[in-house]
């Protein structure tokens, strides 16, 4: 069963997740109603999403039916996967970071341009690599 997993060090603290979620039930943007909250550590050095929902979103924003918070997250800090896939994503992120500093600030699955995968000699077109 898919769940929402959090990749904390990718969170940039924007609060898109929290803001949208808070409005999904009654159309009012009220952080107290949100089922995900971003804890900001003083000094703004960490942003930690805390998820209080089971992933079955009350109002998905897009037609794919995925949770709205995951859909709006700009960095890829939130993912909606089965456990094994979530682990694979996390490892994918770590491997990508070893190669390219870019992935300190964005998840590789969110990056829309060609890039060289870890272990590959060259960049291969997206269709040929698994996402």
């Amino acid at each position, binding site marked *: 069963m898919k769940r929402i997993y959090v990749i904390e060090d990718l969170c*940039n603290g924007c609060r898109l997740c929290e803001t949208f979620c*808070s*409005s999904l039930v009654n159309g*009012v943007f009220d952080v107290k109603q949100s089922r995900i909250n971003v804890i*900001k550590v003083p000094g703004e050095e960490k942003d930690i999403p805390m998820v209080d929902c089971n992933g079955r979103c009350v109002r998905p924003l897009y037609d794919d039916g995925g949770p709205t918070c995951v859909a*709006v997250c*700009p960095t890829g800090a939130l993912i909606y996967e089965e456990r094994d896939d979530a682990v694979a994503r996390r490892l994918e992120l770590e491997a990508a970071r070893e190669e390219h500093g870019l992935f300190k*600030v964005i998840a590789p699955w969110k990056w829309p341009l060609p890039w060289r995968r870890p272990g590959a000699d060259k960049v291969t077109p997206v269709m040929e690599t698994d996402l």
Partner: protein
Amino acid sequence: MTARDNRVQTILWADLSNGSTRLEMLPEEWTRKYLGCRGINARLLFDEVKAGTDPLGPDNVLFFGTGPMDGLPVGMGRMSIACKSPRGTVAEGSFGGFFGPELRRAGIDYLAIRGQADHPVYLYIEDGRIEVRDASHLWGLKTNETDAALRKELSDPDVQLRYIGPAAENLVHASPIFGNLNNSGGRAGCGEVMASKRLKAIAVRGSRGIRVADYDAFLEAYKVLRQRLDLATSRDMWTPVWSTYGAPVLARLFTDIGNLMTCNAREMRWDFDKATRISAENYLDNYVTKAKACWCCPWPACQKLHEIKSGKYQGFKGGNYWAAQPVTFGSLIDNDDLDWLLVISGLCNQYGLDVFHVGYTLAWAMECFENGLLTMADTDGLELRFGCQDKDGLIDLVRKIAMREGFGDLLALGCAEASKIVGRGSERFCLCVKGQELEGIAERNLYMVALGVAVSEVGPDHTRWYPPYPCNPSLISKEELAELGIDLDLRLAFQGRNPEQKGKLLRWFTISRAIVESMPSCVFLVRDTLGLDMRPWWNLFKAATGVELDYPEFVMAGERLLNLDRAFNVREGYRRADDHPPIRMATEDVPYFGYRKLDAEDFEPMLDEYYEANGWTVATSIPTRKKLEELGLGDVADEFDALGIEVE
């Protein structure tokens, strides 16, 4: 508490001379006419701060403005601060972060602060309740120290804050207001004015929900905007790069094409290897620790936190290395040590100094020194040369500027005032317009930039018409352009060194950015359609506020703002003669690439085109009565008449 709406906006007046406060509602009609944020600040400033008001006295008013989009996921936490600048012009700046949404959740859209406290104070605001509290224990603290102290004192890690640093307290020229550690705004004079009121900080907590007028329509409008801004779907080539690596990528490109101000813009081309050392690739790979963002921004890492990992400055932390610092502390002063650059930049943030003021004034001083106009006797023994050999000495000089010590006291005035004191031709090295230092963008290669910097009512401020660089005109089709009723030859307009169409292009860019900043939202996010199509914002505005207005009416709000700002300056005595480039750009050719100086022959016709397109008297730049009445600003024309100002 009940949720609030976005149709009627509220203003909290505070008079620090007597501690009185009152909360009022603004006329509902203002939401339609001025939208909010910068638009309403422009109206308030014109109404409340009359000509001749002492900017550092009790009658100047400091406005903090949010707007109908703040707190909604499209407002990006933007807010506008406005007052009269100590230089005499409008002082308006915007910044992001998280303060705006919190203030709106507290039920307040605008804060208007007049008077002067007789001892340092801070304002504490919680859900419509406001207290004026003693800040004597905070006065003198750096911005990061103030942030930490207030969070601890208020036992609230999520309280939102705006504050000034020691530089503003010491009335150092161009000191901005800061918040969320590395966000700043109002370098046109707002920090100094805040300090003149002895207001050290503002803290706010709000707990109300925000209701939009039509939630379903709002979500649909959000999806349209998000599609334009998201890395995966944006038409603009810059979006993925801009939102991750960031603006410092420009160092390597611009040095190649003669667009990088080097050694006080005496040169426009730097050494490519030096540019590479301070460029975004090095920064992202070796210094960045984390992505940061403003409220609800769809971009992953416009802001960042960084740390120096090794060497002399190991452990020094900061954030937001962006477009200014690669120029002001890089090419402009011929420094390619990124560690030291980030330290200087971080110290500016901590002391509450404006990086443009410090960079350009240092560059001015270096050129003066190299030409014998300043000697070591003047500089407290510091050998001030491009190349920044004496790194420790320069770090100490930044502190001295903030604290007005020794040679720092002269530089604290900014290079316009400093060159008046030093004289002997040092004015030639001062890169200022209306007494305010430039930003980081080439003028002799990009004529729209030259025009935009010269006419901006607050002094140089490219965010008023951002983005400054010619974009690919194929990003928007002729059909779309016709639909929008925009009469521009884009091909000509985007030719960098062709004076034609620049006035018209600037007019449209200024109006459209004014709209975005009145929502508010972030001008970085207009890139997808070159800032030509404002309909996504129009749809969001209608869905959020329930105000029904057609597209031309929506656009007119931006033009209203432009005219109110111009009218404020006109009332203070500013005219066409004040809208001109810095001396160097007007009189010196770039030494290569054939980029000529901006002499009158090229510049004046652009100014004519701009004023004509705006409906302003070409000889003076004063808005005509016809234009003002068309915009529903007949009262401004009447006031001009009453003051004996010639209105055509």
